[in-house]
Structures are given as C-alpha cells and as structure tokens.
C-alpha cells in the first residue's frame, strides 16, 4: 500500500469506504446515507417469518426516536399472525369494494350519481382521495394490490392524541427510524396508510386497541424481500429558496 492511499484511507477518501462523522467535498456515501438513499418500498415478501429478536431490535430504534417535548406519543402493535393478517386484508378489500362501488364513476353501476358523490367527497377529503390513493382503492378492490403485500410481520403505529405539539410528525419520525434500521438489518419495509380503514371496524378497534386516546395512523409491513429491490433511483429536484447575504437565490 502506497503512502498516499494510506493517507487517503485515514481521511476516508478511499473509494467506497465512506467514513462516518466527517465530510469532504464529493466523498463517497457513508453507510447511513447509503441506507437512506438505497431504501425502496418493498412490495413482494418471501414467505419466511422474521425472527422475533430482529423485530424487537427494529422496535428499539423506534423507541429512541426524537419527539416533541420527549412526549413519545406512540404505541406499537405487532401482528405476526398469518390468519389475522389475511383477515385484515380481506376486511380492507371489502371496504375498498364498497368505496369503489360508491365513488369510481368509471365502473360503478350508480353512474352519474357516483360521479357526483366522488366530486363531493374529493372536495371534502382532497388528501385521502388524491388520484394516487383513489387508484389504489380500485386496485385493492380488484385484488391487484394486497394491503400488506404478503408481509409476515406488521407493526401498527398508534398515535397518542394527547402528545405534545404535533404528535403525527413524531409518529413519522419514529416510523422512519424503524424503517431505516430494518433496512440496514437486511429487511424490507413498506408504509401502509390504508390501515386507517380499521377505525370503521368495531372488531379491529378492539383488537388493535384503537380508542381514545389512541388513533391508528400508519402501519409498517416488515419481511424479507423477494429479489434485490434496493437501489438508488432518480427523483424530482425540488426548488429551494436560499437566503444568504441579504439576497435570495434559487437552488435545486
């Protein structure tokens, strides 16, 4: 090994080394950045249960997430029961079929009425009936998209509505901690927002413990992925306003 390469290695400049806790321009991705950038949502899981200890370790990452006023407004419910998960999938599919029947003006037998209903509901809930979840409702109803994508373990995150300031944001931070930790440990994960529909089922509310002060926000599907779905991809650049020296610049 030449002296320059030793020097390079010491300063973390060796290609692919990506040392932690330091930065210089144009350096390689460090392991944490690599996990963040290469994580993709996994939507096809192997039929192999995740070891209990591994799930416990992932939950541990969530427990140490930062939260407003250290309020820790979360509660985890882990479901690893295949029958229960299948039943949940069936429940959500049925709800989606009802929604599709009511709102999908392309296929609904209600015709014009469903178009009017959809227009009204979209205006009432523009986020929940955004074109993307609207399409997902159709796909779940048709059986083309599975709720948990066949994951053997699902972590439900409940929000304590009495949390400090913005508990929903804390839930997101907590979940991201767990998702990144899971990926670094070789697991695949996917956020599932459609679990919100469980709030309409008395049985699920009881089973998952949804009731004041807890509200079900999101779920994370966990399992070993089929193939190698991780990798860096292209994403849109976002315009950033940059104020410095009394002037505004626009950077991307």
């Amino acid at each position: 090994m030449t002296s320059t390469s030793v020097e390079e290695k010491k300063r973390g400049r060796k290609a692919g080394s990506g040392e932690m806790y330091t930065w210089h321009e144009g350096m390689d991705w460090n392991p944490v950045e690599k996990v963040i950038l290469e994580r993709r949502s996994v939507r096809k899981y192997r039929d192999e249960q995740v070891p209990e200890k591994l799930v416990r370790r992932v939950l541990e990452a969530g427990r140490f997430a930062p939260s407003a006023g250290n309020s820790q407004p979360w509660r985890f419910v882990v479901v690893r029961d295949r029958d229960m998960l299948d039943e949940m999938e069936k429940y959500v599919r049925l709800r989606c079929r009802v929604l599709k029947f009511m709102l999908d003006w392309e296929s609904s037998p209600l015709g014009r009425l469903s178009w009017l209903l959809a227009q009204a509901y979209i205006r009432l809930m523009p986020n929940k009936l955004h074109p993307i979840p609207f399409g997902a409702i159709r796909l779940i109803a048709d059986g083309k998209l599975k709720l948990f994508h066949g994951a053997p373990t699902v972590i439900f995150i409940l929000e304590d509505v009495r949390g400090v300031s913005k508990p929903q944001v804390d839930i997101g931070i907590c979940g991201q901690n767990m998702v990144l930790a899971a990926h670094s440990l070789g697991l695949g994960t996917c956020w599932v927002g459609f679990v919100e529909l469980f709030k309409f089922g008395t049985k699920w509310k009881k089973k998952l413990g949804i009731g004041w002060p807890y509200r079900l926000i999101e779920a994370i599907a966990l399992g070993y992925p089929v193939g190698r779905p991780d990798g860096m991809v292209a994403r849109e650049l976002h315009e950033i306003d940059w104020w410095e020296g009394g002037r505004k610049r626009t950077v991307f």
Partner: protein
Amino acid sequence: MFYLAIKEILTIPTYNDPGTCRAGRVVIDHERCNGCGDCALICPGACLYVAGVGKDRKAYMIDKAVPDCMSCNDCAAICKRGAIRAEHGYDFGGFYKALHRAEMVPPRNF
C-alpha cells in the same frame, strides 16, 4: 402569495382525463429487457405486464390513458439490467398541480 390561480384551486381534475392529468410514465429499453417480470411483480400501480415468448418476452406498460404509475422508480431499482426507468413525475393539474419541481435526477454527492 398564490402559486395557483383561484380557478386551479377550484378545479379538481377528472382523474381519467389525459387532457388535465399527467400520470407517471416508464420507458422500457427492449434491447436490454429479458422479460424476467420482476418489475411487473412489484409495481404498486399494476402498470407493467410481461408478454411474448422466448426471446420476444418483454415488459410493457399497460395501455391506459391515465395509468396508476406514480414514478416511484421501484421498477428501476429492482431491474438487474437497467432496462427500465421512470421518465417523469406525475402531475394531476388543477388543485393537485405539482409546484416547484424540476427533472428527475439520481442522488448527488456534494
């Protein structure tokens, strides 16, 4: 400051009209594609399918005016041969108009 005109705020796009909506779109390099079907398996919008036999087995995007593609690029990540990628992000226009965006680029190490 309004980034959307009042008219745009009031118009919710009709989700199946290509005149107002631009869904995501993937481009498939059929020279490189070997029809393994991984992309079709994981596509969350069920937008991809594999057709043909033998050497002609290739992935295709479904022929729909507004497909459910959300340019997530999961297909690009799972493709071993780098044959598929999302061309542009989605923009549903009107109330959902995408703001302050530019073209899609991979992560940059500054």
